[in-house]
């Protein structure tokens, strides 16, 4: 895969989507306010929790804010690049226009996951980063260069993990062509990642940590930035991300083989 070429194609997708948004003069301002409110409410919720206690699953107020910031940033990325593509793939499969995508000389998985971007959702990414900064300020913690580096590494791993999980869900649209939006399945489990994993108990905790690693996705980057990382955890996060990416790729290929009748 030629990275520079894919960079160019991605830029072109972005540009076309920008033009598409402008066509409808999407309410940039309205969306901005909505995002702002969303973050405000989330902050308020955390604040109310901490009237009762000064720890949440062992995390301090500032630490939970950092976690909330990471959650918001990642969700911003999901809404920016992944969510808009889910219903489109269903439509492509249903109407047969997937054929056009399969005749294009770019990777089809790349195409179906990034063709549609909702750029104003990047506001959530920015707001999330803001909340992270605020959390660090509350916590009075200045991350070292190593903390920041590790943060970026595990953040990348988290993004890859989210992408893979999302992609696997999306790929099921080859068989489940009648559900218009499968993203609620993703949302219901990703919402658990808003809070420290240590808050959950028993089977739930096990599932969201190891099976559908929602908690790992947000907790690990937050901990890294707070200086509580270990090389083992970082490597584990990367390894898990790679494993899921590989699995989602295999699943996509399997689905295509099904679609094109190549047995399987």
């Amino acid at each position, binding site marked *: 895969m030629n990275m520079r*070429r894919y960079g*160019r*194609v991605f*830029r*072109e*997708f972005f*540009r*076309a989507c920008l*033009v*598409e948004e402008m*066509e*409808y003069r999407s309410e940039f301002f309205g969306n901005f306010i909505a995002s702002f409110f969303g973050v405000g409410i989330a902050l308020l919720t955390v604040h109310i929790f901490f009237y009762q206690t000064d720890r949440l699953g062992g995390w301090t107020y500032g630490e939970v804010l950092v976690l909330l910031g990471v959650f918001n940033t990642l969700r911003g990325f999901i809404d920016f690049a992944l969510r808009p593509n889910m219903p489109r793939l269903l439509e492509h499969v249903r*109407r*047969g*226009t997937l*054929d*056009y995508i*399969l*005749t*294009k*000389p*770019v990777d089809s998985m790349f195409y179906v996951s990034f063709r549609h971007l909702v750029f104003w959702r990047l506001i959530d990414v920015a707001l999330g980063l803001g909340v992270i900064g605020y959390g660090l300020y509350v916590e009075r913690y200045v991350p070292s260069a190593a903390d920041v580096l590790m943060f970026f590494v595990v953040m990348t791993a988290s993004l890859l993990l989210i992408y893979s999980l999302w992609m696997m869900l999306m790929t099921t649209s080859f068989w489940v062509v009648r559900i218009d939006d499968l993203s609620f399945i993703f949302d219901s489990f990703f919402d658990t990642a808003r809070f420290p994993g240590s808050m959950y108990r028993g089977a739930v905790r096990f599932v969201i940590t190891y099976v559908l690693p929602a908690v790992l996705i947000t907790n690990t980057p937050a901990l890294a930035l707070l200086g509580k990382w270990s090389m083992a955890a970082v490597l584990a996060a990367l390894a898990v991300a790679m494993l899921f990416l590989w699995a989602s790729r295999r699943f996509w290929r399997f689905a295509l*083989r099904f679609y*094109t*009748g*190549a*047995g399987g």
Partner: protein
Amino acid sequence: MVIRVSHLHKSFRVHRREAGWLEAARSLWRRDYRVIEAVKDVSFTIEKGEIVGFLGPNGAGKTTTMKMLAGLLHPTSGEITVGGFVPFEQKPEFKKMMSLVMGQKSQLIWDIPPMETFLVNKAIYDIDDRAFRQTLEELTELLDLAPLLDKPTRSLSLGQRMRCELAAALLHRPQVLFLDEPTIGLDVHTQENVRRFIVDYNREHETTILLTSHYMGDVAALCDRVMIINYGRLIYDGELSVLTEKLAPYKRLEVRFSRVPDMDWGEYGEVAEIEEGTVVLRVAREKAAGTAARLLERFDVRDINIEDPPLEEVITRAFQEERV
């Protein structure tokens, strides 16, 4: 040769279900499958620069064959090479040398002008600026796109959109072009324009074109060679004119009178139609000229026309035969 197909087979396993909700419920846990052979032992070759018409009734296997040629379906057995590539391997080099246009499906981005789709394709096909500008200029001229390029696709008429679809498919200068029902739903005038474009473009660039169509007009105007497929089998592959001679060894004589004489026409030919002032006769090819002369001599004829039978008639006959 550009396209080579030998002993191509494709069968699908389809889920069969009786009507009724009880049956529907039963099929949730027990499914009956049936194997449908969509393409059976099809072989042909197409040379560079040929335009070949692919004909057949609905469900005959045209689209299935075309999809296998474009690498979208995996053959059950048999071999295909297109431009030296095995389509189903879906190599990027293969994808860059071919293009597919489906009359009933659009690749244009609905809400924004066609130009934006062209730019996306430019990036996808990795076309450099100069080549892109040149090709676009040529296509704009040939397809008269200038007034359409900056209008949102959703506001274009079907015909305008089809012209843009063709341009979008040709920007990367494919050597092989698959057209699946490219004129479907278009008005007669636009059909004509699209046909003229296809002929001109083929002549200019020696693009190899395989086309399916329901409209005999398309085939008559575009293709010297036709392939007819029925029930998944190739029943004819050859020149259109030969097919006509073989299946319709007669000509149509359309004779117009001031007043149609009330008589038995059996001596001249078989009556196909008889109307106010006009008689249409089917006459054996070799006798057509002589019969016309005799008619002119004996009757007060206002006008007389000798023509080949309409293609629809020929093709319908072909479908009825097992093998042509």
